């Protein structure tokens, strides 16, 4: 190969990278703006609470001096703009405030509990994808062009039914079957790999059913595309047509939805954690709302929200890598 032909190649690649980087830069910008909105909302949350949040938190029996002291400690007597700036400075330096109930730094509690929640959500998401994609592809191939009507009907009604069961109810059902009746699996707590099984199943079954349906619908429409006919005209074997030609084109819509599912799955852990007494952030946010521990509630909402925003940005970046048209359409 001469350098004359190699040069434009490298340039073309660099141009492609360039476009992707610009796309990522724009997405990062949007992420920062969204984070700012989120932090502002979290900040305002405490000020939107009807009445004096400290009085509400400490109850009517607390003395006026105690309330006043706590107000000062939380900086609630400063002008709003000062509080706003202080709040931002705190969040950016990792200071999420102090719990009204325990007096401990909120950041410490969150750091302790975040791994349990994150591992649960990620595991559940991976399971949902691993199960749903092969099922969706297989059902699409089997039912295309009106074949196997019974399978189609069974799949449609089955997946609708499964996705209609809320994850916490599924958790309760799993506990009563596999924990109580059969006694195979632990029903609560986080203690070793087997304690993950029931919460992960409860969290992933619904999203898996939704994803499998989307994969099927996307595959069905991709299989009718002209380029699939071209692939057939090349006399490629069917598995190669389905997996190498059709599936990557069904990925865009699937991944978009999977991103949404992942962010709702992250928040869905709140309910499932309460079913399984999982020592994660979900129990923290619920108890903080019940005990009116506002700094704690504020920080957990912030963490969940930031998690959702970051997941969305990552999904967009992956999409742009897999489907080069995404970046072009944006430009």
């Amino acid at each position, binding site marked *: 190969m001469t350098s004359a*032909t190699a040069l434009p190649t490298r340039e073309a*690649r660099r141009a492609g990278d360039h476009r992707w980087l610009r796309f990522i830069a724009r997405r990062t910008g949007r992420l920062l703006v969204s984070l700012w*909105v989120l932090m502002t909302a979290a900040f305002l949350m405490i000020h939107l609470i009807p009445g004096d949040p400290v009085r509400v938190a400490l109850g009517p029996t607390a003395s006026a001096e105690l309330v006043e002291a706590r107000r000062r400690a939380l900086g609630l007597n400063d002008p709003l703009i000062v509080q706003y700036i202080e709040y931002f400075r705190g969040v950016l330096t990792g200071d999420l405030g102090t719990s009204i109930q325990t007096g401990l730094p909120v950041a410490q509690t969150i750091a302790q509990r975040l791994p349990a929640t994150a591992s649960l959500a990620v595991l559940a998401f991976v399971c949902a994808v691993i199960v749903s994609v092969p099922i969706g592809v297989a059902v699409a191939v089997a039912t295309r062009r009106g074949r196997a009507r019974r399978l189609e009907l069974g799949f449609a009604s089955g997946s609708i039914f499964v996705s209609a069961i809320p994850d916490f109810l599924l958790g*309760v059902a799993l506990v009563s079957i596999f924990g109580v009746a059969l006694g195979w699996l632990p029903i609560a707590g986080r203690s070793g790999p087997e304690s993950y099984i029931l919460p992960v199943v409860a969290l992933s079954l619904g999203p898996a059913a939704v994803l499998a349906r989307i994969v099927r619908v996307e595959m069905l429409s991709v299989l009718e595309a002209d380029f699939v*006919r071209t692939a057939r005209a090349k006399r490629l074997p069917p598995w190669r047509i389905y997996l190498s030609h059709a599936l990557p084109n069904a990925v865009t819509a699937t991944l978009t939805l999977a991103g949404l599912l992942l962010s709702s799955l992250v*928040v869905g852990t709140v309910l499932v954690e309460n079913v399984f007494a999982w020592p994660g952030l979900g129990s923290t946010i619920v108890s903080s709302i019940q005990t009116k521990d506002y700094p704690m*509630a504020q920080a957990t*909402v912030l963490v969940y929200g930031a998690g959702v925003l970051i997941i969305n940005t990552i999904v967009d970046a992956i999409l742009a890598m897999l489907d*080069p048209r995404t970046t072009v359409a944006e430009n």
Partner: protein
Amino acid sequence: MRAVRRTLRTPLGAAAAILLAIVLLTAVFAPILWGEQAAVVDTDDILAGPSPEHPIGTDGLGRDLLLRVLVATRLSVSLALVATLVAVTAGLVLGVAPLLLGRAGRAVTWFVGIAVAFPGLLLALFFAVIFGTGWLGATLAIGLAGAPSFARLCQTLVAGVASRDYVAAARVGGIGRFRVLFRHILPNIGEPLIVNATIGAGAALLSFAGLSFLGLGIQPPAYDWGRLMMEGLSGIYLNPLAALAPGIAVVIAGLAFNLVGEAAARALGIESTGIVARLAAVQPRRAVGASAPASPDEILAIRDLTVTFPGQEGPVQPVRGVSFSLRRGEVVGIVGESGSGKSLTALAIAQLVEEPGVVDADTLRFVGADLLEGDPADHRRLLGNSLAMVFQDPMTSFNPTKRMGGQLAEVATHHHGMSRREAHDRAVDRLGAVRITDPERRARQYPHEFSGGMRQRAMIGMGLMGSPKLIIADEPTTALDVTVQQQVLNLLRSIRDDDDVAILLISHDVSVIAEICDRVLVMYAGRIVEDLPVSELSRARHPYTRALLAAVPDMQTDLDRPLATVPGRPVDPAHVPAGCAFAPRCPLADAHCRAVDPDLVPVAPTARVACWHAGEPLPTPVAEVARDTEEVVA
């Protein structure tokens, strides 16, 4: 209402409506009938399992759980409905804001765009912090949490309606924004909004159960399904039904709202799945030993080729007995109107007709191999190497997510066992062969980075990855500019000249066929009606061929007069008339034509025609007839 009636007529809609009616009736009457009984405390019988007296057991105060589940229907459903109302109202306000507020409205849109990215439960928890626990706080929290997605929906719906002509006309006419909103826009988005609100009510029901289950919703002594689940979970070792029964009630009620909404959406929208036509039993018939021996020069031999599809009223046959052959290096065109069966003929030869279509023939022989018999794997190898296809739309015929070079190369890796490196080099070489400049760089690009003409040349290059004996090109130039058309035709011609490849060119454009082909097959209603050398086109014998030729504009065409067309409409393959299919549009047709279909018979050493009046002078020039009719036929 139209929507309600249509929804109820579908089986799903009717079933869902009955389910919803049961849920609503329970919500109304259960507290009246059993409200007091459900509150009766029995300290002798606490946390009991199922018994005849208490079918699903009792709670911590010995109260009957079945009755409590039934009574809880009212609170659960009514609060879900109130929350939905809050969501729809807030969503509507946010959704129409862009229309009413102008620039400030854009900020609302921007804000909704950010808020909608957060899952509903997170928003509900956010508001639960502000409003605190209890029924009012939970209702507001769930309602406001649902607002962003409704706002997004409203924005989309409003934008759709606002761009319609009559709304634009009203605005141009000086009608105020509010008046436009209430008179023209809201009535038009009402239906989809109600349908989505119904689905949303199902979701609100589940969210409410979730919040109460967490202890953030309904507080004792009041109880809803979520609260009952929470209380049941603590006693799950004693009585699992205590937690499961209210959960099942939540699912049933949620599904009832959901399904009614979905059924209504489906009834109002376009039926997407459609009833797939059942495949009528089509018996393949085969005349044994009818095929003529192959000559060494023969590339393709077809006799009595048919393609059949199942239809609403029995099988439909868009290709009804096509016979012809192709020799090495011969370029044959098939011309005809849309629906004449020319493209299906091409797909049938290439073995690309998919179920439920059925291809049959007395003879279908490609380079000596009978494609109707033998091992499909052998055929695949033969066709993959020796038959190249070029499709109409180069835009959609390449896989948008794969690089061009890879799409060409996989033919070689798969059929010729080449390594990736060799196959890539071959692909680059072939791109060069179809006159794509800088093929090394182009091979690394994606289809969307190619122009239309380049894509079509690359498609031809893909066919040249093997050593094709036949190229089937189905309308290869239709989607291209005139100058680019010429390049593609020149390319096909030079490939024929260099390698003696036979070409079957399908087109509706007689001038394209005339430019490159040796011979023309004219198809009408699934049959060949005339087969003649291009040089004899001017002496065509079939009235349909003559009408087609008269419809081709040339330099002498008087542009002040309407363009000539073939009078009448093409035949619908589901309703082919008896006798000659062209008879209804033919100026020469008589009773015999309408009764008996003429066979395709040789009329000269090189020409065949299927017409009882072949070559007879036309009563009036076809072109004159055409100018009298307004009907335009593609």
